[in-house]
């Protein structure tokens, strides 16, 4: 039996043993969740991957549905009186796609040594350090660079870092050296959130207003500056905004030589691009009947431009109509899905989320819209939460106008049903 399977078996035994009245958890005590999840995915019949699979069946097979068993654990160990502590977060999973073999995975989400004395604190190791104020987009989340709006909402894996913090009565400062282990590595190992960087955050509480200032110096993207605020404007209304200006950024680019021709290698690669700006404004409103509304609009200047997407569409069409062998065209069309892996697909986005939480239930529906091309991602979710158990179902559909980038994504729909046991 593999180590991961042993861990999962042990965790399941522990969770069964814990299936009694919910015991109180001391702050800093171990806690986590055991989960069973069924994931359903429907392939898109439009887009470059669908075209590739049509030309060469099996080259880009649609993603399979899968059953997943997971165990997540978080714990903090303290050496009393020393100011030292060790933070730990683990994730072990067994994934079995329909019609395929199972796969065991495990990862350390967090493992960090911490020290505190007076108003100072320091950390070293792998840790989630998440900044900024938005819900759907966080331009100033410059350390963790957490993927937003995931369907399953799992705990992220932290970044390797060294951190020093100072806490005033109504202020705080943090200095982080993220990814020090990649210092001096080749660019291919330093893209995006893997880039070594120094990041600085200042925080000030001014009554109902939280003010944040950010600075980041990346090893190859150089400097960026940012600011954010969150303001409780009324009994039920919160406003937030975030702005960041970057000297350089990592982004997808296609080799100039590829143009509309069939090529022998993936023409898409991550490159260091020029300056950009990112901005977010939004508000959250909560009603007396436990209903809530979040509305956000953002501009992400690091996403491909309108011209870049027009060129992408043109290349897709050229490849489909090319006289090259089907296998070659299929491979090139499959490579066209490369720039679809990213944060914001389009630069301008509108996000709306409605939720209602009667009793133990939470119902939510949200829409991410890309006005430039009429794309949309619609999500609906239902969750029931008991003392220890929770049940969740979620459905997400990708679509919009036929020419929109979202309508070209590999998936048309994904859904999940999940049962979780909290301990």
């Amino acid at each position, binding site marked *: 039996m593999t180590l991961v399977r042993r861990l999962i078996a042990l965790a399941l035994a522990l969770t069964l043993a814990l299936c009694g009245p919910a015991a109180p958890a*001391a702050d800093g005590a171990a806690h986590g969740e055991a989960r069973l999840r069924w994931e359903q995915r429907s392939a898109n019949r439009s887009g470059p991957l669908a075209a590739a699979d049509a030309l060469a069946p099996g080259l880009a097979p649609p993603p399979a549905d899968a059953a997943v068993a997971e165990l997540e654990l978080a714990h903090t160990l303290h050496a009393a009186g020393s100011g030292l502590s060790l933070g730990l977060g683990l994730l072990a999973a067994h994934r079995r796609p329909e019609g395929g073999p199972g796969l065991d995975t495990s990862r350390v989400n967090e493992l960090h040594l911490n020290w505190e004395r007076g108003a100072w*604190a320091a950390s070293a190791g792998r840790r989630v350090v998440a900044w900024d104020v938005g819900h759907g987009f966080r331009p100033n989340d410059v350390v963790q660079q957490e993927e937003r709006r995931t369907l399953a909402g799992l705990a992220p894996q932290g970044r390797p870092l060294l951190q020093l913090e100072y806490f005033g009565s109504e202020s705080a400062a943090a200095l982080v050296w993220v990814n020090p282990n990649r210092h001096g590595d080749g660019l291919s190992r330093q893209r995006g959130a893997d880039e070594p960087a120094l990041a600085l955050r200042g*925080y000030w*509480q001014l009554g*109902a207003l939280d003010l944040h200032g950010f600075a980041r110096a990346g090893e190859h993207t150089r400097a960026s500056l940012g600011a954010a605020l969150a303001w409780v404007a009324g009994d039920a*209304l919160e406003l937030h905004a975030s702005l960041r200006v970057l000297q350089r950024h990592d982004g997808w680019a296609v080799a100039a030589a590829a143009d509309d021709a069939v090529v022998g290698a993936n023409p898409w690669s991550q490159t260091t691009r020029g300056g950009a700006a990112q901005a977010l404004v939004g508000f*959250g409103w*909560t009603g007396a009947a436990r209903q809530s509304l979040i509305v956000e609009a953002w501009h992400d200047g690091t996403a491909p431009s309108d011209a870049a997407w027009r060129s992408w569409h043109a290349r897709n069409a050229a490849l489909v109509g090319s006289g090259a062998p089907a296998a070659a065209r299929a491979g090139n069309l499959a490579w066209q899905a490369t720039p679809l892996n990213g944060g914001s697909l389009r630069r301008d986005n509108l996000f709306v989320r409605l939720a209602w939480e009667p009793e133990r239930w939470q119902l939510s529906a949200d829409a991410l819209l890309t006005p430039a091309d009429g794309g949309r991602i619609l999500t609906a979710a239902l969750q029931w939460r008991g003392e220890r158990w929770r049940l969740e179902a979620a459905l997400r559909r990708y679509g919009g106008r036929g020419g929109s980038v979202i309508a070209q994504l590999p998936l048309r729909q994904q859904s999940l049903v999940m049962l979780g046991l909290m301990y």
Partner: protein
Amino acid sequence: MTRLPRRLAALALALAAAGSACAADDVPTLLRTADRFRSGAEHLQVETLVQTVNRDGSPDKERRYTVFLQPGHKSLVLMRSPAEAGQKVLMLDDDFWLLLPGSQRPLRITPAQKLLGEASTGDIATLRWAEDYDGQLVGEEPGEPGSAARCLHLSLQAQRRGLSYQRIELWLGQQHHEPVRAELYVQSDKLAKLARFVVDTPDAPTRVNEMVLGDRLGSHKETRVRYLSRQAREIPASWLNPMYLARNPALE
């Protein structure tokens, strides 16, 4: 009318006015006395158990909290039950933050979000009326309708907008001034909850052991807030900084 009755009437009016003034001046003292039955110290750590019961009497939810109360309208609530493990609510005057275990970021929340729930964080973390309310003495009334025991009825108005209840009608025991019951009104002046206080020894009360809340706005469930233990505890200033709490430090 002869001079003597006029003088007596004038004297009676003067005495009545003086009596009212004395009673009004005593309201802060009454509130401080009532607060001692629930808090008892300026810096406090309270272990709290909240049990919600459905209309049919069946148990619904049970939650455990550790509440740190500090002077100056500062409090920190730690959620202890598995369903909420790792969550924290920080309240500094009229400013509130929610910290969720997975997010590592403090979220600013509105007063409306703080109110949500059968027993809101305001119910759990507000143990002092003297700091937060002005009041006047309405008069002496039965503690419960039909009861022979007399109480002092106080009408309280919130000093700050961020408080869960903008108006409280409070009944205190006549002899010891322990809290007996209260009507809790929200910003819109709607009756949100009825509160009943259970003391340790009715004849010689020293502390409130339990607060029973009846919801009047939504679910009409009954919620029992039991104070399992109270101890004087001054916490470090850093615990009241939302950025420090985002580190998930040990708060023991």
